[in-house]
């Protein structure tokens, strides 16, 4: 059990080491012609100099989507264990699922009715 997750950690470590190796090779190969000039390091936007700040507060239009997403995402975590035991639980599981999904659908319907799913 723990060994299999140790394997996942090994994959993660290789996932970080491998880009590092690539970056190292690239660093060596580009050493001869590396020449960062101030103009080259400017922000790239249409060829003109950039206007104003980028890191400003702006309206992202999907704030409500994000809230509904959290509700749905939590529900999926509950549905997966249920799906595994579904076949052995029989009718009980079906009824339970109906109640569970019905609660969610009511919430979803309410969010829809209140305009949370409109792109504003």
């Amino acid at each position, binding site marked *: 059990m723990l060994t*299999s997750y140790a394997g996942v950690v090994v994959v993660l470590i290789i996932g970080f080491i*491998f880009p590092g190796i690539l970056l190292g090779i690239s660093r060596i190969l580009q050493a001869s012609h590396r020449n960062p000039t101030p103009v080259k390091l400017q922000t790239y936007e249409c060829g003109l100099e950039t206007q104003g700040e980028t890191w400003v507060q702006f309206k992202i239009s999907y704030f409500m*989507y994000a809230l509904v997403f959290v509700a749905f*995402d939590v529900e999926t975590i509950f*549905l997966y264990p249920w799906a595994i035991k*579904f*076949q052995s639980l029989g009718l009980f*599981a079906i009824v339970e699922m109906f109640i569970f999904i019905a609660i969610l659908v009511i919430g979803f319907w309410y969010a829809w009715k209140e305009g949370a799913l409109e792109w504003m």
Partner: protein
Amino acid sequence: MKFFIDLANSMRAGIEGMGASATTAEIILTAITTLAVVIFILLHVVVLLLAERRLSAMFQLRLGPNRLGPLGIGQVIADVVKTLGKEDIIPAGADKFVFKLASTTLFATALLAWAVIPFGNGMIIQDLNIGIFYFIAIGSTATISVVMGGWASNNKYALIGGMRGVAQMISYEIPMVFSLLGVVMLTGSMKMSDIVAAQENMWFIIPQFIAFFIYYVAATAEINRAPFDLPEGEQELVAGYFIEYSGIRWALFMMAEYANMVAVSAIAVTMFLGGWNAPFGLTFIPGIVWFLIKLYLMLFTFFWVRWTFPRLRVDHLMHFGWKFMIPVSLANIVVTGIGIYVYRMITG
């Protein structure tokens, strides 16, 4: 297929023979298989880049890259050398640490998803008991790298691209998760080997064909491919969240993107198309060959869709995701549940 498993077993025996414990041998073997998967991904990335350019040219009655070697195969080497040798430019205004980190973390998460993809019977890096759940969990972490890259670049296009990426990826994650739930209900297990074994007689695309289409559309959106390539739309945002990346860092983004595309195709093959199972009893062809044939078929459909459909508008994209995909995927779960129950009542 047997060859690879024998090779792994002999390697394990060899490592243990050198005096290492069983756990150490297992970890070293995992590292070796992971490196093999990395090579598999790299080969696929370079070949798919060329294949996509050639195929898109065919779809549009152009020629595509055909100068370097037969069928333009030399283009692969030229691309690799070029991206490795390009100057790595980090804009002066960027948040340098996050900027550098984003390309690496995106690749790392793309590779992590491969830990549970079964290439053949027993050919899987780690056959976790929560296999598909792990894949979904890891798949959603790519969102963070996208927004990191978009924010750290200090570029307005990148920021908009990153924000669109988040909106799209979280919206289409839900139908994707729900569509895979039907398969878990049919199997009663999240372990990849169990899911493939359950499809020996019937592929799950037959009882779950609606789920398959939902998964396909949601996966296209998850990996930001056309017609859902709003985060990186070339014509409006130039390249979206990785606009400021150049050289090898840009290549890491592309690699992660293609690795994700191959990964979602592999998951589609595993969950719906029978994995390494041979169709029509053609078992004399090894399972890994069947897996690869199905994988390339899926990848071809991704190319086909990309070069056939125009890009969606951003509000249409969100409406499609929330007002069509999610209700349909929820209905699919209910129908599947009732279907399984009725089937079990009939058969006893």
